């Protein structure tokens, strides 16, 4: 079956003709909690109390095991998936109009399309009649406040158990037969026979029989007699006496041998106690249970199921089950939401706590910095003068020096550069207006650097001087000044008399020509610039 510790915890309510059996199922196994006869006093309250208290209000599986169960094999034409649910509901309603609890199970068998008929699927339709037992059980469940997992029919839900048992108890030695008959007596005394063909329910019978195996011969004879009746029914369901058939019978060991010997048909008989059968199926049932009773085995099997073969539908059931299922889903959702929100809250608290710790550290650091700042201020005040004034005045003074014309230095360098026989006629120093940056807004390139000052020097040479030599002298002066005045631009603006194509020349030559010699002049400009401002590196 499943892994024991992962087995769902459930309460299994077995509705029989005589009483309500209440089984508690869980990872520790399945045990019979109580058997309540239908005519018991305060039945509903007692049953609800047992479900709520003794069974811990575990989810309930209701299993119907009364005689009055109705099964019909029906053909349903193939319809689309969208319509299938409605078609099935309508078909069920038509088939069992007076029974409130209904269900359908699709079989493997199919009807192929022929000339006269459409293709169809074969279903087992089942229904349960309205009964006092059913209404009492529903009232008890409603009152207990336990949620309802499923309402099902025992023979249908046991069909897969029969197949599993056939595989495990018989199939180990030989190939299991196509037909398997499971025979098990219930505490109520009735014998439940479940016939399975290829793993699907084919026939079920619940018949009364002797409720004691004290006389094993009598008990085995009863069992065999019921089996023979079942075989006669089976012939109508397509069984042929030559077909292989397995019989699994739940019995105590003393009666088992007699029972096996009583079968003279062509069948393979396997007798097991309910404990042995449970062991084969991986189930746990109480040790105290009489080995010939099969109902604890059914309760254990159905109680551990995760998927039911034929869950029955009923309005009364839905009215109780759906709100409780929704509530369970709601609880689960709220628990998940609470977990998520708790984690989120914790994360945000951690962020807050980290920031609070950082803030505390920052405050401590600020207090230390404040103290240090106060010490620096006291140190500053101890100097006895205004540091701001000191720094501002020096900055102003340095700026004035940077933008001043070192006029005496210029004269000195000029004097060194000039030859001794040269006369300086005039010197002029002007300070041009600095080029305003906004005048160059429309230009991509940087404006030309504006000079801090321009020094114009005019010189005169004797009229006897050689022009070429004089020009060379002027060039030499420029070279010397360039060397002694780094960072300055020096431009010769006028050389000694020279003829260029733009000059006008009037010349009188000959012995009687009026020749007037005049002095030669030359001029140059020195352009000085303010030093580049240093980038501040200090705070």
């Amino acid at each position, binding site marked *: 079956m499943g892994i024991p510790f992962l087995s769902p915890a459930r309460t299994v309510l077995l509705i029989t003709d005589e009483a309500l059996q209440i089984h508690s199922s869980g990872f520790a196994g399945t045990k019979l909690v109580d058997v309540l006869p239908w005519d018991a006093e305060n039945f509903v309250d007692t049953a609800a109390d047992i479900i709520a208290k003794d069974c811990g209000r575990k989810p309930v599986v209701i299993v119907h095991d009364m005689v009055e169960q109705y099964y019909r094999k029906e053909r349903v034409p193939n319809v689309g998936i969208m319509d299938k649910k409605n078609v099935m509901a309508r078909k069920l309603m038509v088939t069992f109009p007076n029974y409130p609890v209904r269900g359908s199970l699709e079989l493997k068998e199919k009807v192929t399309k022929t000339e006269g008929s459409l293709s169809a699927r074969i279903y087992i339709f089942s229904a349960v009649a309205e009964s006092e037992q059913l209404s009492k059980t529903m009232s008890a469940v409603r009152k207990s406040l336990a949620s309802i997992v499923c309402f099902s029919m025992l023979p249908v839900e046991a069909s897969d158990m029969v197949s599993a048992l056939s595989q495990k108890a018989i199939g180990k030695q030989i190939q299991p037969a196509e037909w398997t008959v499971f025979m098990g007596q219930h505490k109520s005394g009735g014998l439940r026979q479940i016939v399975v063909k290829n793993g699907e329910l084919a026939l079920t019978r619940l018949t009364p029989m002797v409720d004691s195996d004290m006389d094993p011969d009598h008990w085995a004879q009863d069992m065999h007699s019921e089996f023979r009746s079942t075989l006669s029914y089976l012939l109508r369901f397509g069984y042929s006496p030559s077909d292989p058939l397995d019989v699994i019978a739940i019995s105590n060991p003393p009666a088992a041998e007699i029972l096996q010997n009583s079968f003279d048909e062509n069948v393979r008989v396997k007798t097991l106690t309910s404990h042995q059968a449970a062991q084969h199926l991986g189930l746990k049932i109480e040790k105290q249970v009489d080995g010939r009773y099969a109902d604890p085995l059914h309760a254990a099997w159905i109680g551990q199921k995760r998927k039911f073969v034929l869950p029955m539908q009923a309005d009364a059931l839905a009215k109780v089950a759906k709100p409780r299922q929704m509530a369970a889903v709601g609880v689960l959702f709220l628990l998940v939401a609470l977990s998520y929100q708790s984690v989120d809250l914790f994360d945000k608290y951690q962020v807050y706590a980290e920031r609070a710790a950082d803030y505390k550290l*920052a405050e401590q650091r600020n207090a230390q910095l404040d103290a240090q*700042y106060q010490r620096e201020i006291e140190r500053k005040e101890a100097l006895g003068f205004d540091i701001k004034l000191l*720094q501002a005045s020096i900055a102003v003074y340095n700026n*004035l020096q940077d933008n001043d014309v070192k006029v005496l230095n210029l004269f000195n360098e000029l004097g060194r550069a000039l030859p001794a026989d040269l006369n300086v006629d005039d010197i002029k120093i002007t300070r041009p207006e600095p080029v305003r940056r906004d005048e160059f807004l429309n230009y991509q390139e940087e404006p030309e650097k504006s000079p801090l000052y321009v020094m114009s020097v005019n010189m005169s040479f004797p009229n006897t001087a050689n022009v070429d030599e004089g020009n060379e002298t002027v060039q030499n002066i420029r070279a010397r000044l360039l060397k002694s005045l780094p960072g300055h631009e020096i431009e010769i603006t006028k050389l000694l008399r020279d003829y260029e194509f733009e000059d006008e020349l009037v010349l009188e030559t000959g012995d009687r020509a009026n020749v007037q010699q005049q002095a030669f002049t030359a001029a140059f400009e020195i352009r000085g610039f303010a030093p580049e401002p240093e980038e501040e590196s200090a705070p």
Partner: protein
Amino acid sequence: MIQVLGMQRVAILAGLLGLNLVVFALTYFFMDPQASKMQRQLNAARGQGNSIQQEIDRLQYEFAQIGDQQVMFEQIKEDGFFTPQGRRQAEQVLRMAQNESGVFTAKVAIRPAERENNEQADKADHAILQSSVNIRIEAYDDVDVFRYIYLLRNNFPGYLSVDGLTLLRTQDLSVDILRNVTLEKPPVPVGATLSFIWRTMVPENVAPSANNEGGF
């Protein structure tokens, strides 16, 4: 509904819903705002710390520089950089320069002082006073002019910046000129015009206001 679900289930649902609401409210109406508030406080504290640290760095930098700057500060103070441009003191320096330089005449015009905008001075609650000083000099030799400039720049209170200068040799030194040196109005071979800007730095309350166009 309670009959179907039962009081216990309803109570559990209500309790879980309530707990969810409480945790939601705690998260988004308490913890989130608190975390944001703490972040703002943290940012403010860090900003404050950085400001104080910058102030400390500035002060320490100033202290590191004060050694050199103090000598210069005392020097410019001694040179009269913080005086309110007393004309009497200027007159004495001008006379001394004229006498000691050997220039023949020096005609000086000092314009009334005006306030000059200067951010550095503003920081120390001081202002810059500036006066135009225009001088016309007649001399026998350009060297006398240079000496005159030298004496002015080294003795004038405050800072005297050169704004313009013209030095013109009007006549060559000839035998005739040398002979006439002793005359009452001897010929002058060198003429010069000097333009200076005289600046000093004075406390804010001493300087004329920024919109006052008049001078001292």
